[in-house]
C-alpha cells in the first residue's frame, strides 16, 4: 500500500545486475524488482494488486509468483516478482510448471470469496480479474462458497458511489490513491482474515466520512468492487415516460473522453455523435453544459472583480463538486474564500427549471434534467439541499460517462456508426471556446481571465491563449496583467487534492499570495474525472490526448470568450439582467456549509474494535 522504498531505481539508472530471465542472460538495475526488470525485457508476469502508474506494490494478491534460483543456491525458491529485487547471478523462471501452477491456484483462492455473478457486474467484460483468470487458464473453482461471499458487506450509503466488498480483491489500490495521491485519507483497511475489507476511516457511512466523492478510487479499482451508483434504469424510466420532458446536458470533457469506449481513437471529439445518440435515445431537449460554463464565467468573473476591488483575496473557483466537499469537510475555515457561483451543471439545470419551461411551453414539474458528467461527485452535488427548488433537485439525475456508455449499449446504439449531427435545440447550447476548456486543468482560469480582461479594459485580450496557464504540474502559478484599475493579478491552478491540500495549507498559513485560484479535484481536471471511462492496469493514460482535443475545440470555436457567446448575451438580455443581478444571485449562486468531521473516540470504543491483540500479559 505504500509507495515503493527510497531505493527505487530511476529510468536512467545503469544496468549493473546480470541475471538470467527465462533462460536468456540480461541486465537489470540495482534494487529493481523482478517484475519491473521483466517488463523492461518484454516478459509478461500476471499481476493484480500492483499498479505501476501510482507506484503501488503492496504485495497482497501474491499472483505474480515466479521461481528463482539465487547465486550459490541449488534449490529453486518461489517469490513474488512485484517486491523481490533482482540480484546478480539470479535465475528467474516466470513460466516454470511450479510457478504457473501456483499462479493459477492463487487466482482460484482469490475467487473463493469473490462474487462471480459476472453478468450482473458493472465491470463485466472490462475486469482485470477476469483477464487474470484467462491468463492463468483457470478452469475450476473448487473453493468458492456463495454464503461466505454474500456475507461480505455492500455499502449503499453514498448517493454517488457503491462499495461492494463481495467483489473486492483487497488490492488496496483505492486506499493508496486516496491516502497518498489525493491525500483525502477517507479509506482504511479493516478487519482480519476473511473479514478483511476496505472501510471508511473512522465512519460508518459515506455521509459521515471524510470522503469527498472524487471517484479516483473507482478509476483504480481492478474489479467491480468500487463503482458509481448505477442509475441508467432511472434514466430510461424518464425517457420512456410520455408525461415527462427530458432535458439532457453533457459536460465539456465528455465529448473528448468517450469515443474510445466504442473503438474510436482516444481523444476523438465525439460531440456530434453524442448529439445524434441523444436523439436516438429519445431525449426531448439536448443542451450543452459548455453553454453554462460561459454563464459561470460571467457570474464568477463579475464576482471576482467585485472581490478584487474590495480587497478580498484570494478567491477560489467553485465549479468542482469534489473540491467543494473537500473544502466543507477538510477546510471549512476556507469557505468564505470560495466563489458562490454554482457549477455549470447546476447553472444549466436552474435555467432549465426556471426559464426553459416558458420557452418550451411546458409546466416545470414535467421537466427532468439529466446530466452526463465525467464525475461521480456531481451525483452527490445534485442532491445538495441548497440546490433544490420546491423540494425537487434542479438536476434530477446525473449519469457518469460510464453509465452513459451503458445506456447506449442498453439501447443498442453503437456510437461509432452514428452520423454526427448538430443540436436541434435553439437555445442553451451554443458555447465559446472559453466554455469548452473548462474540462481541463487551467481551463476555468483561462476562460475567466479572457472575460475579466475584456470587462476591465473594454477590449479583448490580444494573445487569447494564455499558455502560461497551461501545463501539467500539480500546482502552477502565473501573473497576468489585467490592466485598468485591477493591474497585475497573481493566479494559481491546482489539480489533484494532494496538491490542493498543500496549496490550501499555504494560503491558510499566509505563505501564499494569490488573487484567484482554480481547483480541480481530479488530477488532470475533468478529462480524467472519477466518472470517466476506466482503464485497466493504468491510471490516467489518456490525459494528454483528451486535453489536446479540448484545446482544439477552443481553437475551432467561432467565439472564444464567454461574454461574446450570443446565446449568453441573449439570456442576460431577456431573463437575468446583468451578471450578479438579484435574479442571477437567486438562481445561479449558492452557499456552503461547515461539515468538518469529528473523529473522536474513547479508548473503550477502540478496545472494542481491536482484534488479535489482548490485554493478556
Amino acid at each position, binding site marked *: 500500500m505504500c509507495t515503493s522504498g527510497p531505493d527505487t531505481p530511476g529510468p536512467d539508472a545503469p544496468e549493473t545486475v546480470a541475471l538470467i530471465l527465462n533462460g536468456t542472460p540480461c541486465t537489470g538495475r540495482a534494487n529493481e524488482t523482478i517484475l519491473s526488470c521483466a517488463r523492461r525485457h518484454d516478459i509478461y508476469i500476471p499481476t493484480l494488486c500492483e499498479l505501476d502508474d501510482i507506484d503501488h506494490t503492496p504485495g497482497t494478491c501474491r499472483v505474480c509468483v515466479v521461481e528463482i534460483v539465487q547465486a550459490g543456491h541449488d534449490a529453486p525458491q518461489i517469490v513474488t516478482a512485484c517486491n523481490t529485487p533482482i540480484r546478480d547471478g539470479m535465475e528467474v523462471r516466470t513460466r516454470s510448471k511450479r510457478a504457473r501452477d501456483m499462479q493459477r491456484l492463487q487466482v482460484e483462492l482469490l475467487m473463493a470469496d469473490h462474487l462471480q455473478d459476472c453478468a450482473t457486474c458493472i465491470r463485466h467484460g472490462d475486469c482485470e480479474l477476469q483477464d487474470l483468470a484467462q491468463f492463468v487458464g483457470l478452469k475450476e473453482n473448487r473453493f468458492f462458497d456463495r454464503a461466505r461471499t454474500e456475507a461480505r458487506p455492500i455499502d449503499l450509503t453514498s448517493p454517488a458511489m457503491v462499495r461492494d466488498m463481495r467483489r473486492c480483491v483487497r488490492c488496496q489500490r483505492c486506499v493508496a490513491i486516496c491516502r497518498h495521491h489525493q491525500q483525502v485519507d477517507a479509506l482504511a483497511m479493516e478487519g482480519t482474515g476473511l473479514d478483511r475489507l476496505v472501510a471508511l476511516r473512522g465512519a460508518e457511512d459515506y455521509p459521515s466520512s471524510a470522503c469527498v466523492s472524487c471517484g479516483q478510487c473507482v478509476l483504480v479499482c481492478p474489479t467491480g468492487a468500487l463503482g458509481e451508483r448505477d442509475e441508467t434504469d432511472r434514466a430510461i424510466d424518464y425517457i420512456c415516460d410520455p408525461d415527462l420532458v427530458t432535458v439532457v446536458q453533457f459536460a465539456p470533457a465528455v465529448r473528448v473522453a468517450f469515443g474510445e469506449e466504442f473503438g474510436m481513437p482516444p481523444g476523438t471529439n465525439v460531440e456530434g455523435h453524442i448529439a445524434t445518440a441523444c436523439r436516438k435515445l429519445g431525449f426531448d431537449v439536448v443542451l450543452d453544459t459548455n453553454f453554462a460554463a460561459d454563464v459561470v464565467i460571467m457570474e464568477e468573473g463579475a464576482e471576482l472583480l467585485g472581490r478584487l476591488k474590495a480587497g478580498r483575496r484570494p478567491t477560489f473557483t467553485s465549479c468542482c463538486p469534489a473540491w467543494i466537499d473537500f473544502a466543507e469537510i477538510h477546510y471549512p475555515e476556507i469557505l468564505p474564500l470560495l466563489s458562490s457561483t454554482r457549477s455549470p451543471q447546476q447553472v444549466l439545470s436552474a435555467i432549465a427549471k426556471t426559464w426553459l419551461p416558458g420557452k418550451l411551453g411546458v409546466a416545470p414539474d414535467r421537466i427532468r434534467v439529466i446530466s452526463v458528467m465525467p464525475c461521480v461527485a456531481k451525483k452527490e452535488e445534485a442532491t445538495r439541499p441548497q440546490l433544490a427548488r420546491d423540494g425537487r433537485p434542479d438536476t434530477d439525475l446525473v449519469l457518469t460517462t460510464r453509465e452513459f456508455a451503458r445506456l447506449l449499449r442498453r439501447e443498442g446504439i453503437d456510437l461509432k456508426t452514428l452520423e454526427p449531427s448538430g443540436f436541434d435545440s435553439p437555445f442553451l447550447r451554443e458555447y465559446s471556446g472559453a466554455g469548452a476548456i473548462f474540462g481541463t486543468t487551467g481551463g476555468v482560469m483561462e476562460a475567466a481571465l479572457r472575460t475579466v480582461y475584456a470587462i476591465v479594459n473594454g477590449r479583448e485580450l490580444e494573445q487569447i491563449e494564455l499558455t502560461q496557464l497551461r501545463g501539467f504540474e500539480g500546482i502552477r502559478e502565473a501573473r497576468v496583467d489585467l490592466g485598468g484599475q485591477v493591474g497585475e493579478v497573481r493566479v494559481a491552478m491546482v489539480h489533484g487534492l494532494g496538491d490542493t491540500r498543500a496549496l490550501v495549507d499555504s494560503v491558510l498559513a499566509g505563505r501564499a499570495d494569490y488573487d484567484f485560484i482554480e481547483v480541480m479535484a481530479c488530477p488532470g481536471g475533468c478529462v480524467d474525472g472519477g466518472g470517466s471511462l476506466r482503464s485497466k492496469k493504468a491510471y490516467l493514460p489518456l490525459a494528454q490526448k483528451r486535453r489536446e482535443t479540448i484545446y482544439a475545440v477552443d481553437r475551432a470555436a467561432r467565439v472564444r470568450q464567454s461574454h461574446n457567446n450570443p446565446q449568453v448575451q441573449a439570456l442576460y438580455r431577456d431573463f437575468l439582467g446583468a451578471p450578479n443581478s438579484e435574479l442571477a444571485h437567486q438562481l445561479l449562486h449558492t452557499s456552503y456549509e461547515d461539515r468538518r468531521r469529528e473523529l473522536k473516540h474513547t*479508548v473503550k470504543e477502540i478496545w472494542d474494535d481491536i482484534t*488479535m491483540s489482548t490485554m493478556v*500479559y
Partner: protein
Amino acid sequence: MTQVAYGVWDGVVHDRQAGQATLEPRNFDEFDEGNPIRAFFGDRGFFVFDESVSLVDALYHYMRKAAEQSCGVCTPCRMGTVLVRDALDAMRRGLDAPLDLDQIAMLGEQMRETSLCGLGQTCAVALLDALGHFRGRIEAELAPKRPIRAQHGMAYMTAPCIEACPSKVNVPRYIDYIRDGKPENSLGVLLQKYPMAATCGRVCVRYCEQACRRKFVDEAVGIKTLKRFVADQQSGPNALEFTRDMIRKPLDPAMRVAVVGAGPAGISCAYHLLLRGYHVDVFDKASQAGGMAQIGIPAYRLPKDTLALETEIIADLGGRFLFGQQLGRDFSINDLFARGYRAVFLGLGCQAGSRLGVAGEDEARAGYFSGIDFLLRVHDHVAGKVPLSLSGEVLVVGGGNVAMDCVRSAIRLGAGRVHVLYRRTRADMPADPGEIADAEAEGVTFHTLCNPVRVLTQAGRVTGVVVAQMEQSEPDDSGRRKVRPIPGSEVTLPCDTLIAAIGQQVEDGSRIEADGIALDRWRCVAADDALTTSRPGVFAGGDCVTGPSTLIWAMADGLKAARNIDDWIQRGSVRFYKRARMRKLIADNDFLANDVVETPVRNAYRVHNPELDPELRKRMFEEVEQTISARAAYAEAQRCMRCYRVYTVLTGHPIPEGAV
C-alpha cells in the same frame, strides 16, 4: 517422556521406532505441575512425545490458531488457513472432508511458499512435515471414519519483537494498524499494556528493535519512532478519551490498594488495578507524578507536559494521587493495612546515587553531584524553581543513560567543556547508542578505559580528578573482558564540576527493612518471580527490585504485579500463568531462532525522527526529536515483516486457566 517419539524439526526427521535421530528438548517434562507435555508444534516442525497423540486433531488446533490470527492481507494465508482448518475439522469429527490430504498439502505448500508474512510462511510447516513424513499415521487415524478424541493443550502466537519486549506489546499488530490507516487502534494496542505510550515512544531502550528480523535485510523497523507517532495523536484534535467504562467491573469500595511510588512501575500497576475495578491510591514523596521519568529524564528528551498527560490517566480512571507522602517518614506499611488497603505495591525506584568510593570524595562539598542528584537539580531548573548554571570543565563518570542525560544537560546549562569518563570501552557502554551519538553531536568528549582514583578539592570545592588508565584483560570463559588499572598511569584532570553517574540504590533501605520488607544483598527489595515480597500482601516491582533498569521493565512489572495482586486479593494466592510457561518453553529451546531472511528483500532504510540542529538544541531544554509525518509513518510501517509464529502444545490434562 521428554524424549521425542517422532517428529520433524528444521527438516530433520526424528523417529524412535525407526532408530532415526531423536533429540531431547529442554524443560519439556511437564507443562504445569503433574501435566505432561504430549506434543509440541511450531514454525519449524513438531515433536510428539506420546505415541497416542492424534496428529489430525493437533494440526487442526494449530491451523485454527493460524486462521484466527491471519490478518487477511495476502491471498494464500487468508483463504488457505480457513480451507485447511475446515478440512481438518471435518476429518477430526469423522465427517467427509471438503479437501483430501493431497489438496491440503497443495494449499499448505502454497501458503508456505507464497505468503506475504511470517505467519503464512510458517503456519503450514508442521502440517507439511507431518504429511510428508508421517502420512501413514494420519491415514491410519482417518481410516475408521470416527470422531477423534479431543486433546488438551494451548496455542500461542508471538514474534521475536514481542518476546523481547518486557511488556509483551503486540508490536506487529500496532504496526498493522498504522498501515491500515487506524493509528488510534494502534495506540489502543499499546494502551492494553501501559498508559505511558508517548513517554515510552521517546525514551524506551527498544529491546524489540534489537530482536527485529528486518535487520537481516537492512535495518530494524523504527518501532519506537512509530510508537511515538501514534502516541502523539493524543495531543491533537483526535485524542482518545479515557472513560470509566474501560474498567472491566467496578469493585466494592472496600477493594482498595495502595501503590507507593508514582513512577513508571507504580503508574502502570495503578492503571491495571483500576482497570480491574480496584480503588487505588498512589503515594509519592514528590509533588508530581512520574518518578524517575519526571526527575531523571531531562525535558529535551521527554517534555514534562507529555508525561503529565499520561500520568493524568490514573486520575481519569478514578485513581487518587497523594503527594508529599514518603514511605518510612510519613507513613508505614502497617499504617496502610490499618487504613484498610487490601494490598500494597512498592514501586519505590532507586533514587539514591551511588558514590565513587574513592579518596577525597567525602571532602567534596561543592561542585560534586551524584548523577541522580544532578538531574534533580536540572529538573528544578527547568521547572523554574531553582536556577542552576555551570561553567568551565564538567566531568561525568559513567557510561549509562543517566550519564548521557547528565552530560547533555550540562551542555545546556552553559558548561564550557563536558567530558565522559568510562572505565570500559565505548562498545561496552550500557547507554543507548543513539544517546551516545547525540551527546557526541552536541560536543561531548569521551574518555574511555579510564577511572577516577581520587577527587581533588580546595576548601571543599572540587578542582579536579586523578584518573587511572585501564587496560582490558584477556576474555574469560564467558568471553567477557575485565578491566584493570595500568600501574603508574595516573593523570590529573582539572574540573569545576564532577558528576558521579555510576549507579543508584533504593533510598532509605533500612526504614523499609524495619517495616518487614526484606532486602537482598544489593540492598534492593527482595521479590520473587511473582513480585511478592517477604511480607504477605506486599508486592514490589521496578527499579527497587531490579536495581536501576529501564522504563519498559518497570511498566512490565507494574502490569504483572497488578495481575498478581488481583489474584492474591480474590483467591489468596497467585495463579499459574500459562502464557509465561509457553514463553519459557520457547526461550529455553531457542525456538524463536534469529534466523536469516532467505529470499531477497528490497532495501528500504528506516525513517528517522526529525531532530533540531545540535548547535541550536544544545542551548535549550526544548525537545530535540520531533514526531514523524503520517507519510513517513506509513512508509516505516510498511517495513515490518510480521514475523509471527504460532506454537501449540498438547498436554495430558487441561491447562489451568490463568489470570487475564
